[in-house]
């Protein structure tokens, strides 16, 4: 690929260029990386998995280009390994202690609830600090108190409002994420408003409600017996669709309202396309007993990159590197073990 064509230098004060992210990963190529990673991880009883993770992240970052420059993942495998070992110890301790002393489970649950916002902060910080573009690091400045409010206290509070306030909370979460993210010395900003987030959640809620109504109607037509047991299956696809819809549209909204100084972002993912991808990926992985995982990951990354773009006004060339303290990977790895996934 010829991505090294000379770049037009500042022609005019603010020439606007619309550029899409490009993803050049290939599933066969990534399959080979993936299977050797897996093999070496098994051979070393999991120790290599930290190196494997770096290798695979570097593949995805390196193959993601914007305006001819690619992204870099710079985490050190050793800090990931340390994080994994601590995370492993915590998870083993938890699952063993709670299976032997069932009454301690609620205590653990409360402790984890309060640790979760901390994990969110740590994991974002680790990931941002280890991402580079044009030689400049990203960064994340969010702190625990705000994370505690928007990721734990406010969602719990929204239960009291029968979740009517939840879209507001989701909106504040996105604002917190974007406004605390940095590229070099510059903060991202957002003009995301509550009303558009409500719009997304109302449609999502409507889809889920439709599933419930259909199930209720069908219950009148199906005779009692084995058929009734299958009824919940009728509403599950609607819940799944509602979930994917909210997830996709929130990503679109967040990016479409985000900005870095005068540069803006855009995201045009479509719920139907994401659903198609997720369903075919899941089927492929199941039928291949996991061997198509690399294919699934590449397809998803490609779709996301294609749908994401940047509107550059002028050249993004005056961002300054800031010094960063080395972050350890504990938060990110524990978060991953507990399936916490936050990101832009």
């Amino acid at each position, binding site marked *: 690929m010829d*991505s*090294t*064509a*000379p*770049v037009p230098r500042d022609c005019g004060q603010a020439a606007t260029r619309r550029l899409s992210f490009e993803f050049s990963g290939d599933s066969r*190529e*990534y399959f*080979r*990386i*993936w*299977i*050797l990673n*897996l*093999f070496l*991880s*098994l051979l070393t009883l*999991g120790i290599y998995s930290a190196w*494997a*993770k770096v*290798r*695979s992240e*570097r*593949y995805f970052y*390196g*193959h993601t*280009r914007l305006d*001819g*420059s*690619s992204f*870099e993942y710079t985490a050190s495998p050793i800090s990931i390994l340390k994080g994994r070992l601590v995370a*492993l110890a915590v*998870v*083993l301790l938890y699952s*063993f202690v709670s*299976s*032997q*002393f*069932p009454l301690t489970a609620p205590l653990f649950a409360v402790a984890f609830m309060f640790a979760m916002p901390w994990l969110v902060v740590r994991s974002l910080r680790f990931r941002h600090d280890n991402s580079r573009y*044009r*030689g*400049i690091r990203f960064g994340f400045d969010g702190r625990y108190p705000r994370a505690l409010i928007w990721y734990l206290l406010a969602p719990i509070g929204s239960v009291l409002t029968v979740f009517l306030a939840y879209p507001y909370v989701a909106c504040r979460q996105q604002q917190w994420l974007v406004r605390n993210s940095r*590229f*070099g010395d510059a903060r991202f900003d957002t003009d995301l408003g509550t009303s558009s987030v409500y719009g997304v959640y109302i449609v999502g809620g409507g889809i889920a409600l439709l599933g419930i109504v259909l199930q209720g109607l069908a219950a009148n037509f199906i005779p009692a017996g*084995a058929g009734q047991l299958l009824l919940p299956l009728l509403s599950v696809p609607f819940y799944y669709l509602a979930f994917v819809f909210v997830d996709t549209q929130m990503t679109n909204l967040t990016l479409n309202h985000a900005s870095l100084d005068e540069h803006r972002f855009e995201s045009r993912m479509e719920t139907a396309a994401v659903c198609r991808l*997720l369903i075919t*990926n*899941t089927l492929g*992985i*199941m039928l291949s007993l*996991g061997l198509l*995982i690399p294919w699934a*990951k590449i397809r*998803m990354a490609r779709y996301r990159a294609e749908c994401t773009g940047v509107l550059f006004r002028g050249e993004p*060339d*005056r961002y*300054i*590197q800031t010094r960063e303290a080395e972050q350890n990977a504990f938060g990110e790895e524990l978060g991953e*073990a507990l*399936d916490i*996934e936050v990101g832009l």
Partner: protein
Amino acid sequence: MTELDGYLYDGRSSARRAVRLSVDDDGRVRLPDGSLLSWRALSVSTPAAGGPRFLELPAGLRFETAQYPDVDRLERRFRPGAPGQRLHRMESRWRWVLLALLLVILAGAGGLRYGLPALAKTVAFRLPASVSEHSSRQTLAALDRWLLAPTQLPPQQQQRLQALFDELAGLQPAEFDYRLHLRDGGDLGANALALPSGQIILTDQLVRLSPHPDALAGVLAHEIAHVQHRHGLRRALQSSALPLLIVTATGDLNAAGSLLVALPTLLIERHYSRSFEREADRFALRQLQDLNRDPAPLVKLLRRLEANQAEGGQPLPDWLRTHPGNAERRHLLTAD
């Protein structure tokens, strides 16, 4: 002579410059400012299949190029054996990839089938028998509160069952304190349970299903086997390690990930459970033989249990069951 096109970054700001580096046949790199540098003095990012390569130049300058094969050739020529090259070569040969694939499948299957159960067994037998006391007490209290009711069996029958149980418990090594708890099964129906510390629960419904002492001795011996072989603890250890193993092996899956991890986990856990049940059946058979009791009534009891379950609806296919199929169990118990 090789020419590399790419971008030059100063490492302090996001500004970049499109430049061309030329490398001559002696491995000298001509930088944009005209100075010469040996290729060996550069640090080159480790290869990641087809992605960009970064060259670290003096004074914090970095050069990014998409000419992957050219950098690869230069590296092989001027710096053979640099870290990462061997791995990269393995990744680019299908022969190595297929070998890795084969070994991964073998190691995965072997580890799940033999490795993890063996490891859990070793750990479980190293732990003191008292680790499960607390949890068993809590579980029994919870069962009594939510599911079970006091037994309705006549006192005479209770005494006979207790005597039968004492006879069996007397044969066992003194590690565990075996206790029999007779209960009305309620929603649980005809069933028998063993808690890891040696508490064994037998429901009235099961006793009524087959009052023959040989059948009940078989059931009790089966439950004692679960305690003695520490199945409860082994199950706890195996199921806490399993999801972790699967997630580690498959990497970070999100979105559809939970279902993709939950399903194989369930199937493998059911497989482990069935092999525990087989172990307990074999133990029960040996105990019955030692006591000169007849295994035939136990087989009859299993058949009645099966008929009971069949009334409740479709039986599950074998691979989804927690217990081996009844045909298999009957076969095991009548084999010799």
